[in-house]
């Protein structure tokens, strides 16, 4: 009995440690980064290499890069996950799965160089938001597919059998039986993918680029927030405070997206289950 409570305390301490790490990072960002944040900071383009002005244009570029990435990756990822979850044992699906796992382990700089060679040069899109978004979509596909597939497969087999016994079509089974319990897990996959896209730096330097003006269209080069943070911290003397402020904004955006996707998943779950 005593051993059990000791173990429990240890586990609590470990998980508290993880939370403390997050609190520490956020507290550090808040204490060093709140100074420059104002409405003007959120709306204006950077000036003086980022030491003045704001991050407005970078927020617009970041939004479009992530929108292209998820807009392309989500439908492809969803349908691939559905197929892989149905077809669990064939040689083909096993090969696809191991390819995805390998792809997931590829360093993002490799995706950056690949994206530069394919989208920027071979397909002639140049340094652009479109190149950056498409590169990121390749990068987040593995994690999207694998988490979505896992959550579909976690639905008990009996429910599928019951659905077939009732003579439901495959499509109805998917949307009415499998998706409601799987949706929160799929939401986690989406959050992981969007989070990875938002925080990506190496893959974007070579694809979406470094230009800080407001983009006119998706073929304009546009610097993402994470590339900006990297540049301010490494290349621009005297911009540390603004690097912290930009990082704080990025973390807040991640929190907001996280909560929104979770809420949407809950809503979706409730609607489909009735």
């Amino acid at each position, binding site marked *: 009995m005593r051993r059990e409570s000791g173990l429990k305390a240890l586990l609590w301490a470990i998980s508290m440690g993880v939370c403390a790490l997050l609190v520490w990072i956020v507290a550090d960002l808040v204490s060093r980064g709140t100074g420059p944040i104002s409405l003007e900071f959120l709306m204006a383009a950077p*000036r003086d*290499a980022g030491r003045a002005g704001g991050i407005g244009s970078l927020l617009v570029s970041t939004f479009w890069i992530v929108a292209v990435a998820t807009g392309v990756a989500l439908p492809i990822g969803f349908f691939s996950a559905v197929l892989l979850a149905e077809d669990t044992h064939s040689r083909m699906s096993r090969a696809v799965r191991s390819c995805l796992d390998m792809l997931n382990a590829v360093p993002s700089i490799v995706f950056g160089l690949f994206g530069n060679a394919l989208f920027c040069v071979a397909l002639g899109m*140049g340094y652009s938001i479109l190149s950056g978004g498409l590169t990121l979509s390749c990068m987040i596909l593995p994690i999207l597919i694998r988490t979505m597939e896992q959550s579909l497969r976690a639905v008990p087999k009996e429910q599928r059998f019951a659905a077939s016994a009732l003579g439901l079509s495959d499509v109805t089974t998917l949307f009415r039986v499998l998706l409601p319990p799987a949706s929160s897990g799929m939401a986690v996959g989406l959050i992981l993918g969007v989070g990875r896209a938002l925080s990506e730096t190496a893959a974007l*330097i*070579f694809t979406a680029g*470094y230009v800080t003006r407001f983009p*006119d269209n*998706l073929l304009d080069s546009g610097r993402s927030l994470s590339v900006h943070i990297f*540049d301010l911290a490494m*290349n621009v003397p005297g911009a540390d405070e603004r690097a912290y402020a930009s990082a704080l904004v990025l973390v807040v955006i991640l929190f907001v997206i996280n909560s929104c996707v979770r809420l949407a998943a809950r809503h979706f779950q409730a609607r489909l289950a009735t």
Partner: protein
Amino acid sequence: MKLIFALLAMLPLACGGQASAGRVLTLTGSSTIAPLAAEMGLRFEAVNPGSRVDVQSGGSSRGIADVRAGHADIGMASRALAASEEDLTPVTIARDGVALIVHADNVVTELTSEQVRRIYLGEASDWSEFGGTSGPITVVNKAEGRATLTVFLEHFGLDSRAIQADVIAGENEQAIKTVAGTPGAIGYVSIGTAMVDREAGVTIKLLALDGVQATHQNVSSGAYPLSRPLNLVLTTSPSPLALEFIEFARAPEQNDLILRESFVPMAEKL
């Protein structure tokens, strides 16, 4: 989601619009030069309506490869070109470098590379060894990840873990303030910043290194050993817009931008 597809579908229209926007100049390369080039680009756009300057980062070698392959109009390289790169023309717009600084009251005026190495390794700890007034040497080092640290370590062949530092500074200004307030201190900072602060009357002195004074002339000529050129790189057949931009970047009117990035301008007037 539908909105995104609708927008993707509209892309060709958008491209058509962009093509007529006119003169676009692309620069790629050194991440050291990129912030400076981007600022020059903004100013260039302001005086040349209708033109656009897109600056991309990614490293000196990338800049050279891109300008060769025609993916960029101008490459950026924060080093001298190698013998294998003779097909390209470098134009130096500024220099980047590191100055060794001591307190203005220190009587020592120059050190050799070997002496600097011994001080930073903790093998020499008193100014009397170098002809100065007897007193302990306070070694000011830079924090990990700073470009000046990289240049410093590379030149003196030092390993950052072997350095015996008394003070670790993050920013150039922090190192300068430490040295200006500590009579026995030695530090190293970005050379442009040191020159500007010295001129503004901050109580620091720039040391000569291996017999070469850290003057504006010696830095811009490349004689001062701890410095490197910031080059814009062209092919043999550059576009008229590229030449226009190069001329613009070399004009003394852009010196304030160069100084703000802690570099040393080439034009004589500082």
